[in-house]
């Protein structure tokens, strides 16, 4: 293993790059700001690559561990470490940051430096969330990510941006406050430790476990988002600029799933078992109910936002099946969802930049003028519909298989996504892309410029790579999931 503090680099390189971008000041230096931002994003991705290269697949515990005291009085430590689950999310996050910088390259014309800086800072903070092994450090990063996202929606968003930004902020903040109470309870119960690993070993009585679980549930369910606390997401997506939607879908939602894996499940395993039926029900409602709601959306971004929620239902479903296929499927679904939802939002962004409309009815026959774009959207649409050979299939298939082992009807409800997912995605595709040219605006559309081709191609490669050869993605998950399953099988009741 390298002696470099790789995780610290993964967190602070993007944040410092963000600070540097901010230093370029006003829009007179927009070009410089963009260049620094791109270089910073690439540097941020490059420093995460050694993590993947030196990662020990066979080792289940935390790797690349760093620890130093932060607030000694309360025993708060700046301690970092990752396992395979964190590794995948960190790589996804750093990769997505490059895409987002490219996506905002020409589209954002006002306050360019601030826009780019917000994303770089957010990228560093997200890495912090995935790398923190100290609960308070985790909490600080977790909450801090809200600020840049709030600004991105509130400043560069659409006409109704303030409502959406405030709704986003309050919804998620309210959830996190309950989590804070749980953290403080666990701090006291563990005799003054914020180390997540200590908490996972801590015996807790059933009532307390349920309370802790519910507190975490509120925080993470809002993030995922699970039905019925999902309504902030479509508004946030619709108002957010393209880059904001991409990060929101690709990374921010993953904080919720990650939280369940790190906190709720291992700290309160008995409560998790007891409430699994409830969690599975909520997840399946997300898959079916949200799938049907997505079908009738007239705004493309809203449609994809709902589709995104529906797909995240597979994550929470997989996590509460207590089955290996379910877990690994859930985590792979998180990664794949990052690629696919990100790509879908980027595609809507490509069209919005040209037409300034997100309404399906304003389009029709786009393939005639944008054939290359149409091919990309076909690929991502099929991935969204879970076609084998794309990343979208891997997680869904594994979770459905896992569900089949547990209960036929869980699998039945989950598998309905085969129909609904295809229906809302391809019906939208038909109305937007296929057909004769719908109106004069569509006739004037220009196909992708090289910059757009680049970021869509990067995602296309990711989607296909993970679909055709998912083994390396899953290989890093085997050891931590094995340990997690063993851990969950043991009761923690005192």
């Amino acid at each position, binding site marked *: 293993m390298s002696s470099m503090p790789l995780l610290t680099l993964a967190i602070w390189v993007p944040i410092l790059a963000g600070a540097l971008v901010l230093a370029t000041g006003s829009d007179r230096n927009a070009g410089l700001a963009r260049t620094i931002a791109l270089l910073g994003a690439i540097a941020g991705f490059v420093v995460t690559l050694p993590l993947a290269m030196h990662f020990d697949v066979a080792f289940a515990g935390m790797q690349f561990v760093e620890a130093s005291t932060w607030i000694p009085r309360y025993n708060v430590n700046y301690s970092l470490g990752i396992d395979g689950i964190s590794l995948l999310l960190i790589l996804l996050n750093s990769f997505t940051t490059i895409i987002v910088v490219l996506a905002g390259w020409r589209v954002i014309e006002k306050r360019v430096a601030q826009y780019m800086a917000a994303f770089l800072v957010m990228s560093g903070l997200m890495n912090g969330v995935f790398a923190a092994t100290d609960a308070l450090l985790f909490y600080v990063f977790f909450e801090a990510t809200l600020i840049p996202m709030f600004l991105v929606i509130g400043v560069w968003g659409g006409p109704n941006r303030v409502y959406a930004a405030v709704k986003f902020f309050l919804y998620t903040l309210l959830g996190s406050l309950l989590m804070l109470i749980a953290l403080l309870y666990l701090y006291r119960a563990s005799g003054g430790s914020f180390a997540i690993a200590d908490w996972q070993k801590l015996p807790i009585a059933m009532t307390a476990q349920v309370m802790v679980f519910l507190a975490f549930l509120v925080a993470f369910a809002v993030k995922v988002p699970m039905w019925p606390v999902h309504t902030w997401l479509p508004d946030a997506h619709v108002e957010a600029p393209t880059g904001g939607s991409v990060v929101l879908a690709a990374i921010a939602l993953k904080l919720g799933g990650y939280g369940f894996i790190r906190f709720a499940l291992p700290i309160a395993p008995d409560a998790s078992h007891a409430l699994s039926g409830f969690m599975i029900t909520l997840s399946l409602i997300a898959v079916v109910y949200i799938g049907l709601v997505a079908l009738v959306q007239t705004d493309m971004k809203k449609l994809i936002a709902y589709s995104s929620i529906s797909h995240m239902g597979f994550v929470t479903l997989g996590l509460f099946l207590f089955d290996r296929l379910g877990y690994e499927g859930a985590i792979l679904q998180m990664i794949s969802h990052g690629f696919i939802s990100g790509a879908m939002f980027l595609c809507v962004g490509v069209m919005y930049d040209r037409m300034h409309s997100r309404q399906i009815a304003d389009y029709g026959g786009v393939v005639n003028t944008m054939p290359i774009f149409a091919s990309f959207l076909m690929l991502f649409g099929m991935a969204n519909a879970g076609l084998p050979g794309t990343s979208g299939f891997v997680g869904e298939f594994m979770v459905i298989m896992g569900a089949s082992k547990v209960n036929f009807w869980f*699998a039945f409800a989950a598998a309905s996504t085969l129909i609904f997912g295809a*229906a809302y995605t391809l019906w939208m595709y038909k109305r937007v892309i*296929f057909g004769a040219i719908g109106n004069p605006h569509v006739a004037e559309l220009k196909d992708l410029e090289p910059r757009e081709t680049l970021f869509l191609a990067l995602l296309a490669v990711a989607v296909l790579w993970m679909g055709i050869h998912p083994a390396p993605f899953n290989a890093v998950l085997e050891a931590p999931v094995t340990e997690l399953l063993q851990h969950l099988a043991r009761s923690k009741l005192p």
Partner: protein
Amino acid sequence: MNGLYPVIPLAPLAGAILAGFFGRLIGRTGAHVVTILGVLVAFVCSVLVFQDVQAGNTFNGTWYTWLVAGDVKMEVGFLVDSLTATMLLVVTFVSLMVHIYTIGYMADDPGYQRFFSYISLFTFAMLMLVMSNNFLQLFFGWEAVGLVSYLLIGFWYTRPTAIFANLKAFLVNRVGDFGFILGIGLVLAHFGSLDYATVFAAAPSKAATTISIWGDAQWSMMTVTCILLFVGAMGKSAQFPLHVWLPDSMEGPTPISALIHAATMVTAGIFMVARMSPLFELSETALSFVLVIGAITALFMGFLGIVQNDIKRVVAYSTLSQLGYMTVALGASAYSVAIFHLMTHAFFKALLFLAAGSVIIGMHHNQDIRKMGGLRKYMPITWITSLVGSLALIGTPFLSGFYSKDSIIEAVGASHIPGSGFAYFAVLAGVFVTAFYSFRMYFLVFHGKERFADDHGHDDHHADDHGHGHGGTPHESPWVVTVPLVLLAIPSVVIGFIAIEPMLFGDYFKGVIHVAEPHEAMADLRHHFHGATAMAIHAFGTAPFWLALAGVVLSWFFYLKRPDIPAALARTFKPLHTLLENKYYFDEIYNAVFASGARAIGKGLWRGGDVALIDGLFVNGSAKLVGWFSRLIRRFQSGYVYHYAFVMIFGVFTLLTLWFVRT
């Protein structure tokens, strides 16, 4: 020989990638050269593999590991046995013919390279499907052929009918896949593996396993699994009630109707059930279900062929009906007969479709058989090959279709599982219906009065718009079109005679297709079989032959001799005719119930659930509550000193009072 296996699917894939991504670079000629080369390589390798398998060298092995999750291995691997080898030959041969034919058929289409790329990609996916040795790869191929079918039905993407048809095809197939994936899930849950060999080996020991699906009732796990798997086959092989997508798929260019929607993809379901014979044999209920579904499809879809006027749709309904025959054979445990009919049908139905395409070219885009007639004079090769195809389809003794279809009828007759009585009636009646609609089309197109002259150029709404130019009399198609017709006509005639003995009564499928003791319909057939020639001669004295002959004669009488009779009958039996013309109203019912229903529920959940209840009541409601409360509180902070003084005095007074009262 093992090294050849990956080449078979990968060669067409390479062609597809080259033509798809570098189409502009390599040009039209380049595109068809690379794709045809790819399929040719696959065909040659298939022939070699077939010979190798005949020599007794089968193979079952992993080629690459897709994903490992604990003890569940998900792999890509090949199972090469006589069933695979047969499918390989059929798929690569028909695909090769269709590739060549496409050079002529799509000559002027702007999407030339794209089309070649798609059909090669299809060939890759289909080959992956038939070569698979596990359920995961089967599902991959299953979905991938569905994708290419979707892309090809919507090939002419500016046509509203085409893009409606492709969406419908994909979604109906997905309904089937929904059942299919649940079936695969049950297999994994109960066998812990997705590998065919492991599952089949363990199947007999699980025959008595029951599961509770609903309430306390115990269901046979094998029955539920098999029916769910078969639901997948119903989607892909267009069995009632998931048949609705196939006729609409005719919106795609004719070469793919031949390749995908007649010869290969739609037979994937038949292939799959035959492959799963060790599972299906363990559940009589599932077999019965398969038998009845097949019988309904075979007969009732045939009726619809009678009233169609679009040349491609007649052939499409004929395909539905023939797929029903194959399914019936599966239900009767005569898997080898189903595969045999699959093979003969692939040849003669591809021939009929390609011939129909040739007619469409010759007729300058017109597909309405009422506007044709007398074409035999203008298109001699198409005429003769069509006649051969039609004769094979209706089961003329000595031709390929006769051997396979007669075997199906006899196998059903020998079967004793519930529903076999109905199925026997359906397949017998189907013989008459098949002969009638086939020759109705044949006579209307190639014989009788020339009806195109007076009416040319109109009503080409449904026509394939490949831009062969308008005007002029019908003409024979170029050699790239007619050569595949001739090459397909040859197996349509001889393959049945050659193959029946080894395939049905030899050891060809030994160890591949499993038939349980009580379902030995095939043993009965074997008992009565005394060689292919004897079987054909014997047929002249049996019901199917006379039924077919009656169908041909009746259609001759109706459509050549007395064309006024059909019209009169249509008027007399108006309700029946309307029912058939509207395809039993399946489209309307599905549209009203499922499409509109899903939209209505979605709208209800969105407006009622998300907007009104969650957002309106809870989210914005709580925000409003806070707002209301703070407005109330705000009243107290009026800023007037006398308000505050008053409240203060009032408070002091109250406190003092309480204090005095307490003491």
